[in-house]
């Protein structure tokens, strides 16, 4: 991981616990010492991820791939004209063996180990089932390029286009010539690249957006003390003045999925038993936590991989009935996954991690943060949808194509915290954050909207550690 460019906490002047060790009488001037919370203008930008009431699943996914190709082809074509001026751009059906051409299409990676629905019908269970693993790459994966007319298999002589580092569903341009055997030999590749990033006004003072994910309140291993410490910190009830001042600068909290998790007891229980009321305890716990948070600061809650929302992307907001206590607050917003919004001109885009987790299964040698950077390079939030990541069959549009480059991009529910500042063309800079799962690491990430630096805060409640 190396050294991350993290923001260090501001050193406090004076003794450490002066305010906490003072006489109770001094608390009478608490009103004078009240610290107002900073506010920031919030604009939702994720309207494309909201599905209407009429959701027809009859459509096939070919329409989604076509929309994706058309949307990104224009962008890629501009890249091709800039980088390879003399090379003609042709469709796959017109590729000949005589000259070097450029072709734009969607990538398909042919993987032997990829689980297929047809395996269920195989007479003998193959070694695929025995592996049951999470890595499906093998050394003889091959690449195929597809456009709206035809497909062609490719043999890459270019280091940037290797099967291990790409996934199915990416739109790209390749340059090369067709071999007599039928393969297309690739000598150069171009991706869509980062989209344009809007200018953001620099705030005068520090303002933070807090990111957390994976609270997993339905999991029996969830530590409520740890969650309560998190809530107390954000509401300003933890620590002395320096911590309270830091908490007062947090303008928005994003709970990026995984707040409830799998309700195991409910799944196993008899639907008619009275046990149900106790099995629903985690849902009430989640509502209590959300009510405390919503009363203190604006909260955006996203659904995650095991949450009670639809399984296919884009996940729709969690239902209001799960939050009888928190829903009346206007500061409590139930949002989609993926989620995009703007805070005072700073554009944030995030997912609960399903896209990165899925890409990690089908690539080798790339860290989670690299995959997040690749999503930006390929200009698509989840290229593996709908191939291996379940997704709604859109017809006229692909809402996962990035239209604008965000300033902060996050993937949540990751195994560990990681961050990087990605510099793009035209002065674009994006803060990439992998938000770790709270139940595993107890980490809350604060991103400074002024400097785009991260400050991870870890909460621990066990005193038995060495």
């Amino acid at each position, binding site marked *: 991981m190396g050294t991350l460019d993290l923001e260090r906490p501001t050193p406090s002047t004076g003794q450490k616990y002066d305010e906490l060790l003072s006489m109770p009488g001094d608390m009478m001037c608490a009103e004078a010492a009240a610290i107002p919370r900073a506010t920031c203008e919030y604009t939702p930008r994720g309207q494309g991820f909201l599905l209407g009431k009429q959701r027809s699943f009859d459509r*096939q996914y*070919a329409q989604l791939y076509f929309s994706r190709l058309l949307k990104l082809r224009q962008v890629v074509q501009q890249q091709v004209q800039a980088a390879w001026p003399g090379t003609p751009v042709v469709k796959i059906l017109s590729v000949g063996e005589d000259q070097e051409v450029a072709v734009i299409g969607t990538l398909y990676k042919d993987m032997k180990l990829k689980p297929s629905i047809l395996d269920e019908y195989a007479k003998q269970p193959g070694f695929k089932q025995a592996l049951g693993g999470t890595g499906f790459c093998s050394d003889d994966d091959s690449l195929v390029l597809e456009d709206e007319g035809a497909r062609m298999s490719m043999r890459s002589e270019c280091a940037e286009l290797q099967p291990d580092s790409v996934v199915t569903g990416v739109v790209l341009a390749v340059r090369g010539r067709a071999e007599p055997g039928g393969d297309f030999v690739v000598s150069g590749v171009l991706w869509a690249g980062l989209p344009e990033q809007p200018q953001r006004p620099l705030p005068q003072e520090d303002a933070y957006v807090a990111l957390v994910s994976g609270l997993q309140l339905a999991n029996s291993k969830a530590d409520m003390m740890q969650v309560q410490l998190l809530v107390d910190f954000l509401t300003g009830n933890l620590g002395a003045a320096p911590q309270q001042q830091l908490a007062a600068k947090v303008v928005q909290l994003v709970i990026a999925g995984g707040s409830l998790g799998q309700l195991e007891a409910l799944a196993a229980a008899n639907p008619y038993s009275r046990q149900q009321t106790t099995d629903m305890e985690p849902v009430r716990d989640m509502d209590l936590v959300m009510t405390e948070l919503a009363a203190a600061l604006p909260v955006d809650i996203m659904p995650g991989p095991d949450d009670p929302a639809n399984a296919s992307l884009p996940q729709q907001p969690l239902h209001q009935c799960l939050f009888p206590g928190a829903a009346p607050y206007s500061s409590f917003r139930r949002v989609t996954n993926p989620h995009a919004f703007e805070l005072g001109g700073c554009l944030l885009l995030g997912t609960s991690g399903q896209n990165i987790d899925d890409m990690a299964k089908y690539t080798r040698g790339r860290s989670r943060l690299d995959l997040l950077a690749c999503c930006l390079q390929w200009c698509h939030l989840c290229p593996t949808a709908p191939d291996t990541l379940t997704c709604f*069959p859109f017809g006229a549009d692909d809402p996962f194509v990035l239209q604008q480059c965000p300033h902060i991009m996050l993937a949540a529910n990751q195994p560990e915290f990681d961050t990087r500042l990605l510099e793009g063309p035209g002065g674009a800079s994006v803060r990439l954050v992998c938000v770790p799962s709270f139940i595993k690491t107890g980490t809350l990430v604060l991103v400074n909207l002024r400097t785009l630096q991260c400050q991870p805060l870890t909460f621990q409640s066990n005193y038995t550690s060495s």
Partner: protein
Amino acid sequence: MQQARITDNFRQQKSFDSISRTGRDKKQQKAPELPGAHGEAAVTNYDISAEERLLRAFDLATQYGPCTGMTRLERWQRAEQFGLNPPMQVKELLTGLQGEQLNQCLWDGRV
């Protein structure tokens, strides 16, 4: 006073209007006025009108994308949105008097 039931507030069944209908359901409700243009009869029937022939050519044109799962008008609008310049004649037919019957694609009811 009659006791209020929970079923008064919560509908058990989706209303008929909110169920999205595919072309198949539509055919069962009313007979199409252009006979044999879709479904089983389309395979053997040569009497398809000139308009239907033109629209079938639009369906099979690969540059506008796949045609299954969308109405022809939706596909035309998508093609226009992506700057592919689809023929105006197709749109005029689809928004004209017989537009409703011509709106389902060639493979509707067959695939």
